[in-house]
């Protein structure tokens, strides 16, 4: 699912048609019945209901909407919308349960992500089957699921929607055992309202704007392919010069209006796989750019244990382990950046306030999580040593900038 403030698209793996609906919800005036998308517009025009739009923004700012004297929280309205949007798919596949739902977001906002993951019960999905991804990551998954020659070199993409104009780029680095994909996306200042395309002069101006953008991003680089996505590119005849420009230099050019929704579906497929024949490390928005490791003794052998790996989604990267210090009075975490693996940073966290006990009789639980791409949150808890040395309940919470 590609979830935006203006529109929502849903795609199912192996099916070409997608579901596309405006991200709006309407409550009937007479009863507490809800409808979404076009039906919501229709109901409002008929005077039967009250519509609420910009559901993501409303939920993110803890906003509320009062309909027929009842105050509804933004998060609740978003949940109702999602439930009905997913039901559109479920009604067409009544016998098939949803294996996995990946929601693609333009911006990975912590608050929005918490709200969305909290919707799993309403969506009748176990929490572990609901995943969130950035649009950039969905772009990567979409491209990697195309023929190899499509992503042999760099891949560029323009996304033109009612909300904005964005440019994405990805580069694949082939390793002996895995693929590493670097991708990034940015919102362009040149974005324009799609209504300008309604007039010939407006369309000409928009074409010129895109040409200028194309010149800026595509010259001096070799691209295997260029993708165009978003409502603005459902038709391309209004931008003849831009199309001519991007088709030059033996590039493949594709248009796919539901690219992020399909990308999310491909990512969902990846979750369902036991193991991938060629694992992909994706480094883009929402992914960790550094790994976090610890040196421990495992069966009498010194070994490095990975607490978080490069390319993991920071929102889902969580690990818990228990260790017993042997003559050590602090915990040491090694941070390694993907950009320069030789440069390692050592973070020492002293076990301040922990009870003094004989050596090797303090079990420590370390929980690692992330509150953002660059912020690791550590929780270190004294677990004691069974009934021999009961736990004190002392814990250390620390944020570490990666």
């Amino acid at each position, binding site marked *: 699912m590609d979830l935006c403030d203006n529109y929502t698209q849903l795609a199912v793996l192996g099916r070409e048609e997608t579901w596309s609906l405006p991200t709006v919800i309407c409550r009937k005036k007479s009863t507490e019945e809800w409808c979404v998308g076009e039906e919501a517009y229709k109901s409002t025009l008929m005077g039967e209901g009250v519509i609420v739009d910009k559901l993501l923004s409303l939920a993110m700012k803890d906003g509320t909407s009062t309909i027929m004297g009842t105050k509804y929280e933004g998060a609740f309205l978003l949940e109702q919308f999602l439930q009905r949007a997913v039901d559109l798919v479920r009604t067409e596949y009544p016998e098939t349960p949803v294996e996995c739902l990946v929601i693609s977001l333009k911006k990975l906002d912590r608050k929005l992500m918490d709200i969305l993951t909290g919707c799993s019960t309403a969506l009748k999905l176990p929490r572990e089957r609901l995943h969130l991804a950035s649009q950039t990551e969905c772009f990567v998954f979409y491209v990697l699921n195309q023929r190899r020659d499509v992503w042999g070199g760099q891949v560029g993409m323009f996304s033109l929607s009612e909300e904005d104009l964005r440019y994405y780029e990805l580069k694949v680095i082939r390793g002996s055992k895995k693929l590493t994909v670097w991708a990034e996306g940015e919102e362009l200042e040149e974005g324009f309202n799609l209504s300008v395309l309604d007039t010939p002069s407006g369309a000409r101006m928009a074409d010129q704007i895109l040409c200028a953008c194309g010149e800026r991003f595509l010259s001096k680089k070799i691209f295997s392919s260029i993708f165009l996505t978003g409502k603005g590119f459902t038709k391309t005849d209004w931008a003849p010069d831009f199309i001519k420009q991007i088709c030059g230099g033996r590039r493949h050019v594709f248009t796919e209006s539901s690219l992020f929704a399909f990308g999310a579906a491909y990512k969902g497929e990846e979750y369902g796989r036991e193991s991938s024949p060629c694992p992909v490390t994706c480094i883009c928005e929402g992914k960790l750019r550094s790994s976090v490791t610890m*040196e*421990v003794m495992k069966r*009498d052998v010194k070994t490095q*244990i990975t607490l978080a790996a490069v390319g993991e989604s920071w929102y889902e990267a969580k690990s818990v382990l*228990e*260790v017993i210090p042997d003559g050590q009075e602090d915990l040491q975490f090694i941070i390694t950046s993907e950009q320069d693996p030789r440069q390692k940073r050592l973070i020492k966290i002293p076990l301040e306030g922990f009870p003094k006990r004989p050596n*090797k009789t303090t079990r420590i639980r370390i929980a690692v999580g992330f509150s953002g791409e660059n912020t690791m949150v550590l929780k270190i808890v004294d677990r004691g040593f*069974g*009934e*021999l040395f009961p736990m004190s309940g002392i814990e250390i919470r620390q944020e570490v900038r990666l």
Partner: protein
Amino acid sequence: MSLILCRQESVQTPYYIEELNIHIYSSQELCYVIYNNPLLVMEDFVDERLLTFLRSELKMPFLAERLSKWIAGHGLSDELLLIILQDCTYYNQQELIRFKQELAAFRKLPEEEYKKKRADYFYGLGLYGRSRTIYEKILDSNFRNRFTPDFKSSLWNNIAACHAKLFCYPQALRAYECAWREAGYGVSETDVSSHKSRSRAFIKG
């Protein structure tokens, strides 16, 4: 300096060690008890109950199987304790060597002295009844003729201390009298009452 990575051990039914009055929830705790209580674990510690705990709770079926096979082939021995310590890797090689030497040193002791050390250990744990029984068994053993008067005296003294700890003062007095007699002292009413007043029921190691 290092960090030992702990196995995931979700123990539902912990292993109870009556002598220490503790429940064991992990392989590390088990190793700690073995290493720090050799006199407790040197006799009959590895039994079917422990093997079941290793197999079902600590999810160490291979270790349990290895111990079972060892018992079937060689009978009970100190090697079983070393197998457990080695397998759990809570203690390093140097510590294992130290433990092995400690066990060997205990085994080298004459039987009566080894048994007395066990009885002293139980006394330290507050198991006075058990420790008194062991002291008495030593005194009743077939090889009691070879005991020195000092050794016999210390056994009687310790029996007296056990009685005293159990508030059995008449029996404690009689045992102290025996201890004094074995040590070559004459015993008078005054001596005994003065000893009683000074006594804090110490045992002689």
